[in-house]
């Protein structure tokens, strides 16, 4: 350990110079500097992994189709009580937003007939694509139903919520997406 002020000052200058050179050498490459430059991953702050799925009417839908619009992506199943409980609020906000926010409800491992009957019964009109083999649910590491992701207009996940989303929390997270 240095004993004198002079020795400390010399050591401080050496550390400052070496540290600055190290920091300059490790500047972040340009390709990693924008939010969508982050690797796709089911995690807040990352680009949401893209997918293409088929709806119950046979039409295809891709997440990347909605780039430029905030998306609420919900994984659900008809047997899941909390999913059933939260979906009317999704429908309500989707209608109110008038296209400013897109809701997508990915049904996991159920038939088109089941999903269609469920949607009619509950009055759900936002897209409900089918994930018959749970391939997309695995990509998104869905461990529990429902799982909901809030994705901004650049395709970056802002929030991921496991379990039923209550109305105030849904409202607040959608507001965040719109403010972004």
């Amino acid at each position, binding site marked *: 350990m*240095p*004993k*004198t*002020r002079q*020795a*400390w*000052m010399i*050591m*401080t200058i050496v*550390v*400052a110079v070496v*540290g*600055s050179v*190290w*920091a*300059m*050498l*490790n*500047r*972040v*490459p*340009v390709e*990693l*500097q924008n939010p969508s430059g*982050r*690797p*796709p*991953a089911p*995690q807040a*702050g*990352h680009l949401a992994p893209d997918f293409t799925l088929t709806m119950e009417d046979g039409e295809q839908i891709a997440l990347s189709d909605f780039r430029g619009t905030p998306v609420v992506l919900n994984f659900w199943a008809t047997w899941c009580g909390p999913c059933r409980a939260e979906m009317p609020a999704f429908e309500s906000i989707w209608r109110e937003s008038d296209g400013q926010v897109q809701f997508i409800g990915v049904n996991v491992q159920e038939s088109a007939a089941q999903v269609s009957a469920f949607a009619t019964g509950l009055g759900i009109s936002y897209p409900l694509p089918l994930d018959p083999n749970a391939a997309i649910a695995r990509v998104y*590491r869905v*461990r*529990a139903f429902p799982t909901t992701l*809030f994705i901004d207009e650049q395709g970056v996940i802002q*929030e*991921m*919520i*496991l*379990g039923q*989303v*209550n*109305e*105030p*929390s849904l*409202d*607040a*997270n959608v*507001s965040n997406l719109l403010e972004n």
Partner: protein
Amino acid sequence: MYPVLQIGGASIQTPGLALLVGVWIALDIFSREAGRRRQNAEHAYNAGFYALIGGLIAARLSFVVLHFESYLDSPLSIFSILPGSALPNVGFIAGIIVWLVFLKRKNTLKLEMLDAAAPALAILAVAVAAANFLSGDGYGLETSLPWAIDLWSAKRHPTQIYELLGALAVFGFLWRYRTRWSFDGAASLAWVISYSVVRLVLEAFRADSWLLLGNLRGIQVVSLLAIVAVMLLLARRAQKSRGV
């Protein structure tokens, strides 16, 4: 990466569990160290506990205040504990304030108490690195090195493991020298320097750094400033002690 542990019908968030275990061990070390330094060990433990509770409440309440209109129709939802309905940064700052205020009110906010906290802070850093490893946060740059880990569809530097080992080294250093510091506050300054060196070096391998002044890694800039500030403080102290 194992973000969720499924035990029967229960889903346990492993990063949160790692942090909780880390906080528990850190509080224990903090209170033991405080006792060894003839400070009130009970106050040390309670300060950490209240900081944790205060931080959690502040993180949740700040979210509610920010989105107050959303809660007007359903005020009971304020008490719902959804992970996505809190502001962790506000909670962290509030936790530090609660910790300082508690110690101040108990007349135990002394350099010896801060020194007692130094090894505990190193253990907290170990817990944060472990939590990041479990969740996949704090991920590294892509690499072809043989010890690369498969994360987010690429082979990457295991930065979480680097940081865990770095924090363990800081803890080992502080623990080994804990009875040998020559003045009050030395252990705290040693923590600032050693942890800042670890962050300055290891941040270079991270792919998720926050940026400062264009493309500089913010953590490296902050760490370097902290190291230089402490060294200048030590230089000034050396001058004073020679002048006496």
